């Protein structure tokens, strides 16, 4: 494992499988009456959020607290950042207070990379989403969810996602979730297809290890998982698509489309969902939709990442089996 987690592309297959296996172990903690491990006692983690994100911040915070870390939450709003203090100064100020790890969410692509590589601070850096670049813990929790559902909770231990066919639908261009998922799923042996209107696919996508399609219906029957990405309504104003209704008709997942998917296939969404846009309520609320499960898995994955980056040397993974649901 590296010292930082900046990009899903930095993870080897073995790194990724180790994180997923460790997360399974962490998930068991959540089933206990006392959901806490002493692993990071005495370590301080700061959640440095320059962008609004309640979900990801709370997920990291829960993970940190379950590992007994001391947690500092820093949000840019109302802080000196809004008065013009730089990322560098903010990070150095926090490190001077004795921070062991920085979980950073930033609107600028590459900000976590700069933080980790510019000699500004020594703390471990975990990317909690940067601009339209990467969101590696999201990709890990997605892979974790897929492995549980498509391979099995116990059967999946030590396994990757070889041969699984994953379809990502929506705003690929502006999505750090898509970039992270393409990198990680490829590393884990899955076959990835991106589906979007051509306007929402980046120029240069041809170098990505995946297929690109413009027709959703053609890919549904060949998908083990369909992941829907949020499409912001404002994109319409920049002429990425004509109307919300046209987008929904062509790329939204409704009950009829879901029926075309193989029976075992799941529907995923990183949230927040725009119901009626990329997903109908019928699909969002169905058993095949893992959106809520993904949130729960997010805590386990973030515990695993924090543990592996900060927790020292003893193995957390015991490979004890739990009963398959």
């Amino acid at each position, binding site marked *: 494992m590296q010292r930082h987690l900046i990009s899903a592309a930095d993870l080897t297959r073995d790194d990724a499988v180790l994180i997923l296996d460790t997360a399974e172990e962490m998930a068991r903690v959540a089933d206990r009456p006392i959901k806490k491990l002493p692993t990071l006692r005495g370590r301080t983690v700061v959640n440095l959020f320059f962008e609004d994100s309640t979900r990801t911040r709370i997920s990291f915070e829960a993970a940190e607290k379950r590992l007994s870390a001391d947690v500092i939450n820093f949000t840019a709003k109302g802080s000196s950042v809004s008065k013009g203090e730089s*990322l560098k100064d903010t990070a150095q100020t926090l490190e001077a207070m004795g921070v062991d790890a920085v979980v950073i969410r930033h609107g600028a692509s*590459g900000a976590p990379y*700069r933080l980790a590589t*510019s000699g500004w601070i020594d703390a471990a850096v975990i990317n909690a989403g940067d601009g339209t670049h990467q969101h590696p813990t999201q990709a890990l929790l997605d892979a974790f969810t897929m492995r549980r559902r498509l391979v099995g909770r116990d059967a999946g231990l030590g396994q990757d996602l070889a041969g699984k066919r994953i379809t990502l639908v929506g705003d690929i261009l502006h999505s750090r979730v898509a970039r992270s998922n393409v990198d990680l799923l490829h590393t884990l042996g899955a076959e990835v297809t991106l589906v979007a209107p051509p306007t929402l696919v980046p120029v*240069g996508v041809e170098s990505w290890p995946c297929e690109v399609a413009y027709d959703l219906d053609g890919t549904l029957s060949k998908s083990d998982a369909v992941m829907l990405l949020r499409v912001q309504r404002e994109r319409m104003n920049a002429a990425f698509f004509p109307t919300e209704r046209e987008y929904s008709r062509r790329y939204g997942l409704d009950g009829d489309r879901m029926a075309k998917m193989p029976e075992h296939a799941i529907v995923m969404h990183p949230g927040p969902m725009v119901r009626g846009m990329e997903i109908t309520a019928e699909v969002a609320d169905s058993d095949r939709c893992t959106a809520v499960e993904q949130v729960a898995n997010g805590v386990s994955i973030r515990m695993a990442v924090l543990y592996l980056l900060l927790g020292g040397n003893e193995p957390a993974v015991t490979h004890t089996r739990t009963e398959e649901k």
Partner: protein
Amino acid sequence: MGKILIRGAKVLGGEPQDVLVDGEVIEAVGTGLSAEGAEVVEADGKVLLPGLVDLHTHLREPGREDSETVLTGTRAAASGGFTAVFAMANTFPVADTAGVVEQVYRLGREHGYCDVQPIGAVTVGLEGRQLAELGAMHESAAGVTVFSDDGKCVDDAVIMRRALEYVKAFGGVVAQHAQEPRLTEGAQMNEGVVSAELGLGGWPAVAEESIIARDVLLAEHVGSRVHICHLSTAGSVEIVRWAKSRGIDVTAEVTPHHLLLTDELVRTYNPVYKVNPPLRTERDVLALREALADGTIDIVATDHAPHPHEDKDCEWAAAAMGMVGLETALSVVQQTMVETGLLDWAGVADRMSARPAAIGGATGHGRPVSAGEPANLTLVDTAYRGAVDPAGFASRSRNTPYEGRELPGRVTHTWLRGKATLVDGKLA
């Protein structure tokens, strides 16, 4: 000012010769010239070029003296072998009046390191709406002939057409920063494979090429000449080549960094590589070198763009665009053009001195190294190899993309009208 004998210099890279300077002019060029009464500079096989001329420099004064001043910028120019620089108009206030251009011009004269020829803004405040008083700037003491809204594109086709037409009255030229603004909203780097991966907003080649195509057609239509700033793509080369073959009066420049660096460097997210137009691909770099060699691109211009440290010591999106370039330009050209066999030193003198002087109308610069010509000269130790150390820069800013990179060649002496501005690599 006495006599100077530059002994054993390879004039334009040719056989070693002696060059005798008397006062402000070259008195004689030959072998075995008498050193009597002259200070002798042993050139020892170094290459002697006419003083370099930069058609595209940002001196930042007035307004951003924290990043550069006319004094520090012209000292940087002298260090890089330049004897004349054209100062871009995007200062605060904008150089859109006779008053501002005369101030910049006078500062250059007073400091005496390098002639400063101000460029006037095309439109008031660089806002692209109303023509600035181009005639007044031309008639001022600064004698402006080059006009540019550089930093911004004159994107309104009618304003561009009018500017092209208007400057014909006094032989001026409009230098266009070719960037279609709508296609580059939020642009952070070249749009392509790397931007797709890094999640940085793309600056597509077509945003440059579409403006160049439009402007060469406008220039043809109204019978004007147009100059293209910092051309950066293979497609732009094709358009300029086509325009020249059609007889359109277009000239173009390329920066040293676009001859050497590619967008792969942006993977570091280090804003020292953030520049406008952005670093492009290897294919573009090779096309630009080829075009500079065959004359499609007329000149090298630095686009020297100083920025204070804090504007680069930050995340990519927050960083300023631009690189300093005066003190490394010749080295980069030696590496990318001379050592690749694409240009000889006479070619370098043409692309970095004679032609930029001709395009900008810098009288007395870019002249041949021969008797009777102004003694604007640059002596280059082409055998030198060394890593770039920004701490040694004369520029007030250090935002170079070459820190620690080994580059060939070093300017040891610069003379401005016979007066040494750089001696043994040290500013006089």
